[in-house]
């Protein structure tokens, strides 16, 4: 069974679906016309370029190119996390990069080697696509996790200092914020696991079924990928915080002011 392709004409028809949101925005002066159009253009161009890149990668299927591409995505994601968390790029880029790289590559290898039992774990079709999916989730998780962690400490500085002043180590005094950061980073993944299958079918599963896979295969992939996402998010947030903590506090255990990009 082959997936029905979408012809150029059909794709234009797809863009017609934009009409109502635009009219709505115009009528009620929602001021999102410009943003929506830019987003739609960005999405289309990015995906179009991606399709070219992916077909090229699938064709070549070279281990080093695949690894290079994953590393490129990790670098991109690291910058995005730091930017979105309004943290200082210079202090954070290395630790965030290593935290993402370690957690993503570890889970990716586990997934491809132990679960899928691929002969070639670097096979572009799996390595890049699944890697991207894990990374995308780690990205959101880390933006929530790391920015919550540092902002919380900053906001509750007196609480933090109370423990520090009473002999706690930096790790002990930061523990409540670490815990909260992990909870808030993991909550979206855990919540989506609970509703999956009832209300909606996740994108990956939908795609596989449309692509001709049996629902049984699709759900097994989906279960495995959700668990892999959960592991990637928790591992990467843990590592990001552990790796950044050392450079974010001075020798007296006080949070450095310059870790934030702008004055809070």
């Amino acid at each position, binding site marked *: 069974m082959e997936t029905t392709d979408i012809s150029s004409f059909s794709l234009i028809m797809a863009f017609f679906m934009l009409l109502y949101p635009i009219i709505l925005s115009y009528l009620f002066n929602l001021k999102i016309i410009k943003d929506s159009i830019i987003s739609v253009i960005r999405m289309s161009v990015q995906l179009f370029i991606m399709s070219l890149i992916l077909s090229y990668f699938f064709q070549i299927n070279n281990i080093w190119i695949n690894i290079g591409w994953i590393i490129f995505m990790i670098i991109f994601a690291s910058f995005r996390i730091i930017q979105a968390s309004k943290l200082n790029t210079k202090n954070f880029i290395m630790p965030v990069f290593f935290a993402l790289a370690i957690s993503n590559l570890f889970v990716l290898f586990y997934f491809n080697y132990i679960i899928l039992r691929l002969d070639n774990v670097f096979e572009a079709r799996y390595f890049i696509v699944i890697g991207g999916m894990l990374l995308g989730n780690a990205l959101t998780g880390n933006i929530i996790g790391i920015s919550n962690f540092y902002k919380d400490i900053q906001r509750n500085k*007196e*609480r933090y*200092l*109370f*423990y*520090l*002043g*009473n*002999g*706690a*180590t930096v790790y*002990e005094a930061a523990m*409540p914020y670490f815990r909260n950061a992990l909870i808030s980073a993991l909550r979206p993944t855990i919540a989506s696991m609970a509703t999956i299958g009832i209300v909606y079918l996740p994108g990956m599963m939908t795609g596989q079924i449309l692509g001709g896979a049996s629902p049984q295969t699709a759900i097994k992939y989906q279960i495995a990928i959700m668990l892999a996402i959960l592991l990637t998010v928790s591992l990467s947030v843990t590592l990001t915080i552990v790796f950044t903590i050392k450079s974010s506090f*001075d*020798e*007296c*255990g*006080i949070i450095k002011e310059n870790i934030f990009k702008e004055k809070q």
Partner: protein
Amino acid sequence: MIEFKNVSKKFQDSYILKNFNLKIEEGSKTLIYGKSGIGKTTIIRLLLGFIKPDEGEIYYNNQRLNSKNIWEVRRITAYIGQNIEIANGTVLEIIKSILKLKVNENIFFDQQKLIELFNFFELDKTVFEKEYESLSGGEKQRVLIATFIFLNKKIYLLDEVTSSLDREMKLKVINYFLDKKEWTIISISHDQEWLSAPGINVIKMEGQKVGNH
């Protein structure tokens, strides 16, 4: 034990503390007294290494305070700041979280002794199960005072810890601290009860001029 030598601290170009001198002997009881906003709290924050002096030096056991021995100072210190919103959870959970710190690992959790201390400061046993947040300001102060007395530290840095207590309770707390010969007490307070406490060294702070009484 602790000495401030010509310590100055600026906040946005104006001095909050200028050429401040202070000598604290082991076991001494010191009250830092004065209007709010003249740097009383700054003294405690400097001593705990939360901020660094712009000029002058602070000594701990004749050694300049640095990023090494500051941790030692914090380990032997009980610090109760003005902000007493220190954690969420029940009183017992918070006490346990404090006892769980590595610094307190040798302290045995003698619940009977803690209950006695709570009773002494007129907190009954049911308070342990209450949410800390739901307590009144005075109750929170007494919970923290009793808890840190239980920990039996060497130095007590107390920043306005009796502000929400009634006169009788203030005296009870003050006397408890003053009676403990081995404890070094540094208290910051507006309260008359501290000022008139027998045997306390009063450091009166008046703006930037600091007199030793």
